[in-house]
């Protein structure tokens, strides 16, 4: 039972964080000079001041800020996240539909970077200090400095424009009714954006895994394993993976913020109709404040969920912390 205590504490802390995020983002959004009034005046040139006053009343922007905030927060808690001005739909519906599309992309990228990051990190560790390790390590460090948006453009240029292997964008072929889109077509459209998105966290994870595994190879228990006739490869499979996997999984679940941030770029470059693309739609032009605030809150929940899973994994799966909690 007391195993659950640290997790309960973590959740309580998470709720205070989410509340703080809601307050800060609400203040920031309200401070924006690009507010409903300026927007309304822009779209209705020569509108009378009485009409504007009427609209101000309708939007409720003359109410005290605290009251407005509480009204908004209450809506969030009740499941009424307001109405998106750019999509003319309830915010929650927009987020729901778009997140589903993004999820396919993020999950693919996340799995790819996880598998390859761990695999390449293990490879580097087995060949530690030798030329292969040194070269791959340099490449990984180089990859850490490459911005997502540029690598996306390079992929687009090479694999779509020059080689023609993949389409230029969108999640499905243009002009095909949704019910006729095959799974193959979806995957075909998914590959480039997913590769783009997996690029950054892949090299981080590889370097992290390399460090962890080298720690294992330098450990007393690896020495003992060697003294008992185990080879480097056997040590990797018998002890290395076991010891490096939990930190790697924790790191992957802790990388939801980068994943979400990266999806904004990947989806914009590949015109992928997910939540990331909606971020720039909500932020540009007339500024869709309800949608933007909704996405901020949603992304905060998403990141919190990732960190919570990471926390639970370290608390419940690792036998040492299990013992400590007892």
């Amino acid at each position, binding site marked *: 039972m007391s195993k659950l205590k640290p997790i309960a504490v973590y959740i309580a802390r998470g709720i205070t964080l989410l509340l703080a995020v809601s307050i800060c983002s609400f203040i920031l959004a309200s401070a924006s000079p690009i507010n409903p009034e300026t927007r309304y005046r822009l779209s209705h040139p020569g509108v009378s001041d009485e009409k504007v006053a009427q609209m101000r009343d309708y939007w409720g922007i003359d109410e005290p800020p605290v009251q407005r905030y509480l009204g908004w927060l209450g809506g969030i808690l009740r499941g009424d996240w307001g109405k998106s001005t750019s999509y003319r739909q309830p915010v929650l519906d927009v987020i729901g539909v778009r997140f589903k599309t993004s999820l396919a992309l993020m999950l693919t990228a996340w799995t790819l970077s996880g598998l390859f990051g761990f695999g390449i990190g293990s490879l580097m560790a087995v060949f530690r200090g030798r030329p292969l390790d040194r070269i791959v390590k340099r490449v990984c460090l180089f990859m850490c400095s490459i911005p997502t948006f540029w690598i996306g453009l390079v992929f687009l240029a090479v694999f779509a424009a020059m080689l023609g292997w993949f389409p230029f964008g969108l999640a499905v072929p243009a002009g095909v009714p949704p019910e006729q889109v095959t799974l193959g077509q979806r995957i075909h459209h998914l590959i480039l954006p997913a590769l783009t998105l997996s690029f950054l966290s892949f090299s981080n994870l590889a370097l992290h895994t390399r460090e962890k595994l080298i720690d294992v190879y330098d450990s*007393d*228990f690896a020495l003992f394993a060697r*003294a*008992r006739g*185990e080879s480097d490869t056997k040590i990797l499979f018998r002890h290395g993976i076991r*010891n490096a996997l939990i930190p790697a999984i924790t790191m992957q679940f802790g990388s939801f913020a980068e994943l979400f941030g990266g999806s904004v770029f990947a989806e914009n470059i590949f015109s992928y109709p997910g939540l990331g693309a909606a971020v720039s739609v909500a932020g540009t032009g007339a500024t869709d404040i309800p949608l933007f605030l909704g996405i901020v809150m949603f992304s905060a929940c998403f990141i919190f969920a990732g960190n919570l899973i990471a926390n639970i994994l370290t608390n419940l799966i690792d*036998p040492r912390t299990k013992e400590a909690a007892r």
Partner: protein
Amino acid sequence: MLDVKNLSLSFRMYDGAFRRRDLKVIANLNVSVREGEILAVAGSSGSGKSLLAHAILGVLPKNAILEGEMLWFGKPLDAALQKKLRGHQLALVPQSVTYLDPLMRVGRQISKEKETVKELFGRYHLQDEVARRFPHELSGGMTRRILISAALAGEPKVVIADEPTPGLSPHLAEHAMKHFREIADSGSAVLLITHDIDLAVRFADRIAVFYAGTTVETANASDFADESLLRHPYSRALWRAMPQNGFSPTDGTQPYAGSLPAGCLYAPRCAMRTPECVSAPPEPRDIRGGEVSCLYAT
């Protein structure tokens, strides 16, 4: 069974990109273990004794350079043979719980064969349930028995025990030593590496006195009954430093690895030193049933 002759070990270190120097940690070491005996390699801490174990097993780091000769039943003990013997005929009993994988249940670390684990647990009075525990859930005594079991799973001919007793209560230490006695009595050889000369005297058959990376004397344990039975000035100094013999210290300190003197390593502290001692390391000689590396040993 296992003979180590004139063994030297150094580490290749790099200061910056091009400056290279070799750090010598073991010099002209001689040790041989016979069937059915416990041979203790005794010396103060930090003198590279563990590295001797790693050298015999062939698990030294990559920057280690080994010179000299190691023989296994008269055959050269090279990397290929070490690889064949490790974990079967040649086993290591490590120092502490950190030598067990913290995330693996101990049963699986001893052996994949459930029967072997069961049998070893029976021999060391461990309950079957312990096999399902993780290393951090073991008590000190259990850890000791687990580590010994892990070494014995391969039915070894030579067991190297590296500081098996620190951190154990006297009672448990005695227990551990009894296990080694049993192993020796069953026909294997035990190489016991320890800084505890007292323990060595009580349980070993012979004692190799280790000083600054070399063995100065190999004596029978019974020789430690009196100072006059010992051959090397350092062994005698060690004897005088034992609590029951007056606890008297010797001036000076052990030379640090990397700055070992050219001649006899003990010469800088030796009262019997002559110019010959400083010029070249003394050859080991057999005197009164023991082996000693000193020009003036009697």
